[in-house]
């Protein structure tokens, strides 16, 4: 049943209101600004949880949404303010709300231009939530692009030594991907009759517009690829991944968390939200290639991670690898594969969020991230070492922790379709274990590096940002059923649209 409500508008625009309020706070009241940001993200998080409480898991999604708002925006061009969620977006909306809230605390140490930082951060949150909630493709595109500006400044102003390069590289890559998508959106608009940007309507009327255009039978394959490149750059899928290590390494801790935890998911979300239901035939045609790309991501990302001496870069490349699991799960189009892919998006957000926060903790104390430059920290930072081990284990896929469930589901789903790819991809898990354990050993074991005689253990504020994520990582690892149940009906419907046997 399609339900309507204004809650999504409140979720999306509460951060924006917060940003406006922060701009009014007089200079010199930095703590007030920080607390305002906590308030804004806190209300948003609370609203997402309220929304989850009202969410009906049995709803099919994809073409039928909940909490729908639909109003005319620009009538002459049939652009609508059209928002709604289903089982695909709900986990990501909650993830965004949670990570943004925690990241404000992780940004407590920002001293320069606090007002600008917090406002841009909240603007970014509005952009992210808008992307996950919007169902009008024009609106989606606006939110998609609106994120770029705050991200550019957040990396560029508060980032590391090579921040200028990283910021513009991120901006150029993403803009390049999205402008092609814009042309794709316009092509869909003019192909449909009556012209519409409404995603559900385009999916439902596919039979009517999906005809050869310009005399090209493969016209929609080109559009599919235009969309795919836009999303692939965000994921990032090899060979479009080179912006990621730069951006992640240079960005301040909280922004790395958001980049890895939420922004990367937009790519995979976009493929599932747009490419799959709009172009099911093209998706089948493309699926083996997507699986191949996924395998490349896993192996290549893991090998790169292994070669890093910078801890943050290692985590960044591990993201490339872990998003590869998502891709193979999606490529399989089986029920397990799709569940695995969406769960992996959620799990990766939580686990990589933890990893980046943890890197931030040690960087704040040691002022470097060279894996070989530590040594024996376990004796001085026992709690920190414990939390890191939990995060590393969760990330490398230890059974009982979140990462294992989603990776296993991806493999299970892929095995009947692409056995060879699966076999290669599984070796990625071994590589993941190798680089995580190896670096853990180098940082925490062995003789204590004398420089860190006086290093202090993790403090309460830092623990506060990590504990919710750690609890979720364990909880989902032990009992994933609740999270999976949000998405089942939606993914079944997606399978139906894709024309594969539902539930397998």
């Amino acid at each position: 049943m399609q339900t309507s409500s204004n809650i999504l508008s409140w979720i999306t625009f509460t951060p924006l209101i917060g940003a406006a309020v922060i701009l009014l706070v007089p200079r010199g009241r930095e703590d007030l600004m920080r607390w305002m940001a906590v308030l804004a993200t806190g209300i948003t998080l609370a609203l997402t949880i309220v929304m989850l409480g009202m969410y009906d898991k049995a709803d099919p999604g994809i073409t039928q949404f909940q909490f729908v708002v639909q109003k005319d925006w620009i009538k002459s061009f049939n652009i609508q303010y059209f928002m709604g969620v289903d089982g695909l977006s709900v986990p990501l909306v909650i993830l965004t709300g949670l990570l943004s809230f925690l990241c404000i605390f992780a940004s407590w140490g920002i001293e320069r231009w606090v007002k600008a930082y917090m406002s841009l951060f909240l603007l970014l949150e509005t952009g992210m939530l808008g992307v996950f909630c919007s169902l009008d493709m024009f609106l989606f595109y606006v939110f998609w692009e609106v994120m770029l500006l705050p991200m550019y400044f957040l990396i560029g102003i508060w980032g590391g030594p090579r921040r200028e390069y990283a910021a513009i590289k991120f901006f150029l890559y993403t803009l390049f991907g999205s402008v092609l998508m814009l042309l794709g959106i316009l092509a869909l608009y003019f192909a449909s009759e009556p012209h519409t940007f409404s995603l559900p309507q385009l999916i439902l009327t596919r039979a009517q517009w999906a005809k050869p255009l310009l005399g090209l039978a493969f016209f929609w394959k080109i559009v599919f690829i235009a969309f795919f490149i836009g999303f692939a750059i965000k994921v990032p899928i090899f060979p479009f991944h080179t912006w990621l290590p730069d951006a992640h390494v240079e960005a301040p801790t909280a922004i790395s968390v958001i980049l890895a935890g939420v922004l990367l998911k937009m790519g995979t979300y976009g493929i599932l939200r747009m490419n799959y239901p709009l172009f099911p035939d093209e998706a089948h045609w493309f699926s083996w290639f997507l699986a191949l790309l996924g395998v490349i991501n896993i192996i290549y990302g893991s090998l790169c991670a292994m070669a890093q001496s910078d801890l943050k870069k290692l985590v960044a490349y591990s993201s490339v690898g872990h998003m590869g699991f998502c891709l193979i799960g999606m490529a399989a189009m089986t029920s397990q594969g799709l569940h695995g892919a969406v769960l992996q998006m959620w799990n990766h957000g939580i686990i990589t969020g933890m990893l980046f926060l943890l890197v931030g903790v040690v960087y704040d104390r040691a002022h470097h991230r060279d894996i070989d430059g530590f040594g024996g920290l376990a004796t001085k930072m026992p709690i920190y070492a414990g939390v890191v081990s939990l995060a590393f284990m969760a990330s490398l896929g230890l059974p009982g922790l979140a990462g294992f469930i989603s990776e296993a589901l991806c493999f299970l789903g892929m095995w009947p379709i692409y056995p060879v790819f699966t076999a290669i991809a599984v070796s990625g898990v071994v590589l993941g274990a190798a680089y995580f354990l190896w670096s853990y050993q180098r940082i925490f074991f062995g003789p204590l590096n004398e420089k860190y005689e006086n290093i202090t253990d993790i403090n309460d504020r830092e623990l506060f940002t990590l504990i919710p994520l750690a609890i979720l990582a364990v909880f989902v690892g032990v009992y994933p059923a609740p999270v999976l149940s949000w998405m089942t009906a939606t993914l079944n419907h997606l399978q139906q649209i894709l024309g594969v046997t539902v539930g397998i």
Partner: protein
Amino acid sequence: MLELLNPRDIARISPELVLVATFIIGLVMDLVLGKRGGKAVAVFSILGLVVAVFVDLLAGFLGDIFGGMIVRDNFAVFLQLLIVLAAAMTLLISIWTSEVSDKPTAGHREYYLMVVAATIGMFFLVGSNNLLMLYLSMELLSLPSYLLVGWLKRSRKSTEAGIKYIVYGAGASCSMIYGISLLYGLSGSLYFDKIQIFVATIGSKPDLPAATFILAVLFTSAGFFFKVAAFPFFQWAPDVYEGAPTPITAFLAVGSKAAGMGAMLRFIFVCLAKRDPGNMDVFTALGSVDWPLFIAIISAVTMTVGNFMALIQTNAKRLLAYSSIAHAGYMLMGIPVLSLLGLQAVLFYLVVYLIMNLGAFLSIIVLENRGISPEIKNYRGLGARAPAIAVAFSIFLFSLVGIPPFAGFIGKVYLFAALIKANWYWLAVIGVLNSVVSLYYYAGIVRRMFLEKTIEEAQIEPVPFLRMILWLLAIPTILLGVYWAPVMKMAHIAAYSLGLPK
């Protein structure tokens, strides 16, 4: 029947007459008031412009004037509004521009009147429906522009720019008058509608030298390409934009370009194309050559050259000069699709471009006033020293790239939409890729301002009045990016009135 001397026609050009009166009274005021009268003349000129707009809107006469020499349709009125906006803004800004009003520039009061004179030329230009009228108005626009570009007598760059502009301008106008004479010789008329009848039948006249017709159109369009700074007549722009007083640069970049674009659109859509009687939304290309493809290629080359040249600029004024070339290229994208949607996209883009580009030049002026010359390296750390200017400047620059939620994005979306609707995919792809390229140099300025740490700490306080105008331009840049329906509606009405069959 030609009614060249219909007395009612005098009343019908009352907006232009108001401007002429403003010009003459301004001159007298200048004589009477002498040196004290500088600001008074400026304020009076602005007042004259405002009155002209009101007369333009309220007089309400639409139709042929002077036997069809001039047409006043919604298209002309729309562009006249834009032109007045550009001219009035230029004058307002000039009053507080130290470069113009402080330096011992002899007789700087005429400066304001020259802007009014150029505005008269533009008013006639966008309504011209006759090649001779078109040529004369083009000259009426050009002559004051030459003077204004070289206004700073003691500045070598300004003088050089003035000379360059005259030389290039004279070349373009020679070529144009030659083209016009060829067209006249071929068609036997200077009136656009008559030329259209000739062009429509050109295929059925095998004895007619097709090459002559092509040459005629090429030479005529040289004048237009010069005015809008399109390939291959754009080389003047960087030097002239850099050397001219900055308010005049802004005036050339937005006002002159809008007028030139308007005249070109009328020439193309009335002389070389015809409205499809079955479907009023589309036009049919006339003539024996595929000129839409020609315009498309010009558009692609113009934006690509503009953007790539802009990449290597170190002076903000030069950079904006190349960017304005690129934007001429974007606007030309709306022409080859030959549809109402394309036409209205160009007109809407002109509005957006006027606001954001004026804003960008104003930011430069505000900084120049405080002794920061437009070398981009001087903008280092402005985010800390002058946050208000830097934020507004960034809004204009990102809008020029075409990123939501700014107006420039909407302008581009409509241009691309027109292309996609008419299946001009290749041009749309070149257009979007150019947008990506342009991000690099626009963001380069932003990078200097915000990402690099400042060397000097001293705060820069803009002139309060100029800061107000800065926000007066920044706010619509955002608003039009969020809700643009009313302006689009106006652009639609204006586009619809062009080339309606009599």
